[in-house]
């Protein structure tokens, strides 16, 4: 650091520092894509085993095949699956997924130490982990006593003519075109897939669920 105190003339104190700043400085990295953007959420009874439930959270939408290789989960981002059993829209159980060094770690289902918009990782419980599947590899999964987990790039399962919808919404078109165009065709997302026995989810006839992305602050 260079910080100078020096007086120029009478009574004028100038604090001068000599540095180079923006003149030869690159601008800040783009703030356009966010590793926290959830594109979709699914919850369904397992096609393989009807006593299991499957949860799917997708992030980082509209990846092209070319940039899927370099797309990755962010170690500062916690993906939290919330389960409410008693209809008060407050989570009774959470399953937390967070990446470290090429693996995705899963904690829960467990009653969270704190509900709402801030969370701690429930790391008092031993996690289940899976190697994050890299682009081009076949899907890697961990199956631990019927609790299956996956994390990595997948085809975006969503199908929607977003362009036509925007035209309808903004009054550019009076209706959808037929046939429509799947805006998400040929693109990938980063997926986290969990399958676990329904018995671990609170034993209610119906549950409410939602997913959140949370950033370390």
């Amino acid at each position: 650091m260079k910080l100078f105190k020096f007086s120029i003339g009478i009574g004028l104190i100038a604090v001068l520092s000599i540095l180079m700043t923006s003149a030869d400085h690159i601008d800040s990295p783009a703030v356009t894509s966010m590793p926290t953007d959830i594109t979709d959420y699914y919850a369904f009874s397992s096609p393989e085993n009807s006593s299991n439930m499957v949860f799917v959270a997708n992030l980082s939408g509209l990846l092209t095949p070319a940039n899927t290789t370099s797309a990755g989960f962010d170690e500062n981002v916690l993906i939290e699956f919330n389960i409410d059993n008693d209809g008060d829209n407050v989570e009774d159980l959470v399953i937390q997924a967070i990446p470290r060094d090429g693996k995705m770690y899963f904690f829960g289902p467990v009653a969270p130490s704190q509900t709402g918009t801030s969370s701690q990782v429930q790391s008092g419980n031993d996690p289940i982990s899976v190697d994050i599947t890299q682009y081009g590899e076949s899907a890697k999964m961990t199956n631990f006593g019927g609790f299956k987990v996956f994390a990595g790039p997948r085809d975006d399962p969503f199908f929607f003519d977003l362009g036509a919808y925007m035209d309808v919404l903004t009054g550019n078109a009076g209706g959808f075109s037929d046939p429509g165009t799947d805006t998400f065709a040929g693109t990938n997302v980063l997926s986290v897939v969990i399958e676990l026995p329904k018995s671990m989810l609170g034993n209610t006839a119906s549950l409410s669920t939602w997913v959140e992305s949370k950033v370390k602050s």
Partner: protein
Amino acid sequence: MKNIKIIYSLCLLVTLSLFTISCSDDNPDTGVELDFSGTFAQRDQMGRPAINTVFVSSADKDVFNRATPSTMGGLFSQKFQDRLLALNPGYTTNALGLDAATFTSVLATDILSVATSGKTTFFDGTNVLTGRALDDDVIDVELILIFGGPDGSSNPGLTSDNVSANDKTFSSSFPYLASPW
């Protein structure tokens, strides 16, 4: 209720520790000292598909994405109703028989209801909101409920985006989603 929860949590702990004992596989990870400390603050959330896109104005998106479901009804029901009536000024009821206020108060709380037995689907003609499967045409369901009127037949040009399936076939085995392009 609370007692049940505590008992349940205890059961869960026991179950997990049994797993630990019975399986010396590389899971659960106990040997690794990893740092998971810190507080994590919400940036995005999702329950039902495309609710954000359809009903939340740009100006409200940040608040909506950082809200918890238990506060959403109070914050967004009226705004969702205004939005619904702006999208479809002729809205009376929809195929579920819900008037504008009821329909939007359901939607404003962005959670996905899932049945723990029976079929899980967004809507298949019989089952309503019992989950969301990969191949559910959720957009058409939402469009029908917004524009289709009491029997789903109103505004035919607006009740389907005419994209009815994914561009890749889903797998019948875990992790179910198709491999990337």
